[in-house]
């Protein structure tokens, strides 16, 4: 059947959400909708990527994202190879590009890359011939997380436009915050970044976000609260006074939660520091979308892997 051009996906890589148009993001979410159905079948597998090879190249620790990509690839009937930095030639001093070229030489179709350096996926996409999917590059972007957050919000509210979304905590070190910001604003949501001045650069205002340092000032007006993980491994001590003070000012405590809209939707990209940025009763409560996010992540990643393998683009 002939379809109008806006009903087609033409990108070979998924590197950032900043680069995508609103129509492309919506196309991705709609595709994810169809893939969600696959996971409800008794045979949870389709032959779409039969004979294709997906390599998970993770240069940073990850449980959720890596497992999710592995499962997504296997539900599409692709073969999956896990590559990790530890015990590889990377520890012998091989450069990222050499490692990637060697992996590619084995006949890989999609390289899923998680790397501590911002721009790593972009760099590889320019170097290798296979498709590259960014699974997190430094503090730059984590596009599939941004997409699954967006998908989960759209599923919950039936829309994204007009919603007020607070992204709270360690904004400076968060690639999720950046991917959230790009995708939410493109679809018409209002984004409010909340955090201490040391962890919330003013530069976010020029990217279209409202920045506030007082969580309580906006707590009653938001529809969605995305609590970011405090990334102790990335934070310099000067940025962060004390855990107790952070929780008191920026944690989603039961007291603070009681002043939210009754149907506020609480999200967290995981892994959670329970009792620090979010209290356990809220994380496990009826307003929490945290496990839904994980389930939707699978459908979103199936959609991404399927779409980037389009031939002859």
């Amino acid at each position, binding site marked *: *059947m002939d*379809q109008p051009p806006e*009903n*087609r*996906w*033409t990108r070979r890589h998924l590197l950032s959400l900043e680069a995508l148009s609103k129509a492309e993001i919506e*196309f991705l979410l*709609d*595709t994810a*909708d*169809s*893939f*969600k*159905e*696959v996971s409800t*079948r*008794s*045979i949870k*597998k*389709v*032959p*779409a990527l039969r*004979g*294709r090879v997906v390599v998970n190249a993770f240069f940073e620790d990850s449980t959720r994202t890596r497992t999710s990509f592995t499962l997504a690839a296997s539900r*599409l009937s692709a073969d999956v190879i896990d590559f990790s930095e530890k015990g590889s030639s990377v520890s012998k001093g091989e450069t990222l590009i050499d490692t990637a070229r060697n992996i590619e030489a084995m006949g890989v179709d999609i390289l899923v890359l998680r790397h501590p350096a911002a721009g790593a996926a972009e760099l590889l996409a320019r170097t290798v011939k296979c498709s590259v999917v960014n699974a997190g590059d430094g503090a730059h972007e984590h596009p599939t997380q941004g997409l699954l957050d967006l998908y989960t919000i759209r599923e919950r509210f039936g829309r994204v436009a007009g919603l007020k979304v607070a992204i709270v905590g360690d904004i400076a070190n968060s690639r999720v915050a950046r991917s959230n910001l790009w995708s939410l604003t493109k679809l018409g949501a209002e984004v409010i970044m909340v955090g201490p001045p040391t962890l919330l650069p003013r530069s976010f205002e020029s990217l279209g976000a409202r920045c506030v340092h007082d969580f309580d000032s906006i707590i009653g007006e938001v529809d969605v609260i995305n609590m970011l993980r405090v990334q102790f491994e990335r934070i310099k001590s000067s940025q962060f006074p004390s855990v107790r003070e952070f929780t008191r000012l920026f944690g989603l405590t039961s007291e603070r939660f009681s002043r939210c809209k009754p149907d506020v939707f609480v999200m967290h990209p995981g892994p959670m520091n329970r009792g620090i940025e979010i209290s356990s009763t809220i994380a496990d409560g009826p307003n929490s979308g945290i496990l839904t996010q994980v389930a939707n992540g699978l459908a979103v990643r199936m959609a991404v892997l*399927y*779409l980037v*393998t*389009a*031939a*002859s*683009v």
Partner: protein
Amino acid sequence: MRTVYDETDVRRTIATLTDRIAAAFSGEALLNIVGIRTRGEVLARRLAEKLAGRGFAKIGRGVLDITLYRDDLSEIGPRPLVRPTEIHIDMDGHPLLLVDDVLFTGRSIRAALNALSDFGRPGAVRLAVLVDRGGRELPIAPDFTGLMLKDVPKDHRVNVKLKEIDGRDEILVEPRG
């Protein structure tokens, strides 16, 4: 070669198809009718309504998107939108009528059969098509055909237009491209 079939022709063709199907199945037993997206879905809906009007009491309905099962998936360029498959029927052991608008190479039907087998094991699968234009590349034949077009050249396509999607009922034989 005739190249245009209008609304009256389409109505007559669907009526013929309904007659043939009604004669082949029992109205008492469950009959599942599954349409292949996009126009097969619409045809399946129309056939189900007509059969219900003729006393078919138990009709199960489903929709199949075969994109993920196509054998040319690695060759087609930009990705078209995959739409959800909706199969919530009691499939095992019951007859199933697969519906599509045009039967050409048979590859879509091959894909649909593979997709169906992921959902269950029908007692028998039968194929109904509005138009059979020949040109098979696989050993697949329809059980019920509305209109047989024998002389359509390979470089032509048969376009079925349906009111629900296209605003009018029409069958057109046109050069490709």
